[in-house]
C-alpha cells in the first residue's frame, strides 16, 4: 500500500528541488547584480575621493607658494604682533599713578592733607592730617563713593588720633582697585 504514494512524494521532492534551484538562481543573479552595482559605486566613490584629494593637494601647494612669497611680510607681522601684544598686556595691567593722584585730588576734602602715601603690592597706605573728625569722615565717604571705588576698595582706618589743637592724625589703608 505505501507504494501508492511514491509517485507524488517523488514529484514533490523534484518540485522542491526545482524551486530551490530557481530561488538559488534568482538569488545568485540578484547578488551578482548587487555586487556589480556596489563595485561600480565604490569605484566611482573611490575615484571621486582620489580626484578630490589631488585637487586639494594642488590647492595646498598653491597656497603654500603664495604664503612663502609673503614670508618677509609675515616675519614683520609676527614681530610687530609679538611685541605689541605684550606691550598691551603690560599697559592693561599697570597703574596710571598720574590718574590715581588726579582722582585723589577730586576726592580729598579741603581740610585734609596727606603726609605720606605708599603704594605697594596692591595696597595703599595713606597717612595725613585733618582739621576735624568731620573732614576725615568726608574723606572716607568720598573714598567709598563710586568715584572713589575706582581708585581704592576695602578702606580701613588703622589709626585716628587728635592732639590738643584738635588736629587729627590718621592712617588709612586700602586696596588699590584693579591694576598692578
Amino acid at each position, binding site marked *: 500500500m505505501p507504494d501508492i504514494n511514491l509517485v507524488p512524494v517523488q514529484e514533490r521532492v523534484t518540485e522542491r528541488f526545482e524551486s530551490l534551484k530557481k530561488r538559488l538562481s534568482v538569488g*545568485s543573479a540578484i547578488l551578482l547584480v548587487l555586487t556589480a552595482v556596489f563595485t561600480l559605486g565604490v569605484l566611482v566613490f573611490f575615484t571621486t575621493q582620489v580626484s578630490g584629494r589631488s585637487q586639494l593637494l594642488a590647492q595646498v601647494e598653491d*597656497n603654500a607658494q603664495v604664503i612663502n612669497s609673503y614670508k618677509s611680510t609675515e616675519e614683520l607681522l609676527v614681530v610687530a604682533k609679538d611685541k605689541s*601684544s*605684550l*606691550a598691551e598686556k603690560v599697559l592693561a595691567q599697570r597703574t596710571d599713578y598720574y590718574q590715581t*593722584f588726579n582722582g585723589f585730588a577730586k576726592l580729598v576734602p579741603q581740610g585734609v592733607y596727606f603726609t605720606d602715601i605708599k603704594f605697594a603690592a596692591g595696597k595703599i597706605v595713606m597717612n595725613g592730617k585733618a582739621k576735624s573728625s568731620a573732614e576725615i569722615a568726608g574723606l572716607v565717604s568720598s573714598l567709598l563713593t563710586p568715584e572713589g571705588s575706582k581708585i581704592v576698595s576695602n578702606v580701613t582706618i588703622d589709626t585716628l588720633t587728635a592732639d590738643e589743637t584738635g588736629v587729627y592724625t590718621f592712617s588709612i589703608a586700602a586696596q588699590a582697585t584693579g591694576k598692578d
Partner: protein
Amino acid sequence: MDLSGVTKVTAKAESSLEIAKYSSLAVPVISILVSFMVLLMIVWPKFSQALQIKNSNVELAQKTDSLKQKATILASLDKTELEKQVVAAEQLFPSDKNVFLLISQIEKAAGGSGVLLNRVETAPGSAQGSSGKPSANPASASSAGAQPEIAPNVEVSVSLTSGYSSLLQFLNNVLTIPRVVSISDLSVSASSSEGSSQLKVSLNITAYFKQMPTDLGSIETPVAELSDSEKARLKQIIDTGLAAAATASQIEQVPVGRADIFAPF
C-alpha cells in the same frame, strides 16, 4: 534469475542522475560565493580606503581653507606700513635691556618736569644682555616688577624730591615714554619741615624687553593680525615721529681718552 547486475546498473544510473541533478545548482552557488568573495576581498577594503581618503580630504579641505585665509591676509597687508610698525614695536618693547637708554629717558622725564633726582639705582646684570644677546642671568633681568610673568624686565629704583605738580608731570612723562614701563612701590612723603611743599618720592620703574621671535612656525600656523588697539598704539608712536624716537633711542656720544684716569673731572 540473477537481478543483481540490473540493480547495480540502476544504482549507478540513479547516482549519475543525482550528480547531474545537483550539478545544476553549482552555477548559482559558485556565483554567490564569487559575489561574496568580491564583496569581502575587493569592494569592502576599497570602500574602507575611500572612507579614509574622504576623512583625510575633510582635514585637507580645512587646511586648504586656513592656508587660503592666511594667504589672503598676508596679501592684504601693506609691507611698508608693517616695516614702520615693527620699528615702532621695537621702540615700545625693545629686544634688549637697553638700561642706559632707560636711565637717559628717566633723566629726560625728570628734566622735563622739574623734579630733582636724588638717586637712580639699578642692577641690570650682564652687560651682554643690553646688546641684544640673551641675558646671562635671567633672574637679575626679571628680579622684580609688577608683571614678572609677562616678559623679562629691568628695574630702576628712583628717589627724587619735587613739588606736587612736578611729581605729577614726572609720573606722566615716565608713563608716556615710547618704551613700555610700569611704576611700582611708589612712596610719597611730605618734607618734614613745616610749611614746605616739597615731597620726597621713591619709586621703582620696571621696563620690559623681549627678543625678537626667531621662528615663524609651520606654514599652517594661523597668522594673527594686529588688533585695533595695537595698531592705534603703534600709529601713535609712528605719528609722534619715528625719526625723533630713533634719535632718542640712541645714547649720547661722549668724547673718549684721558691722560690721567684718576684725575677728578
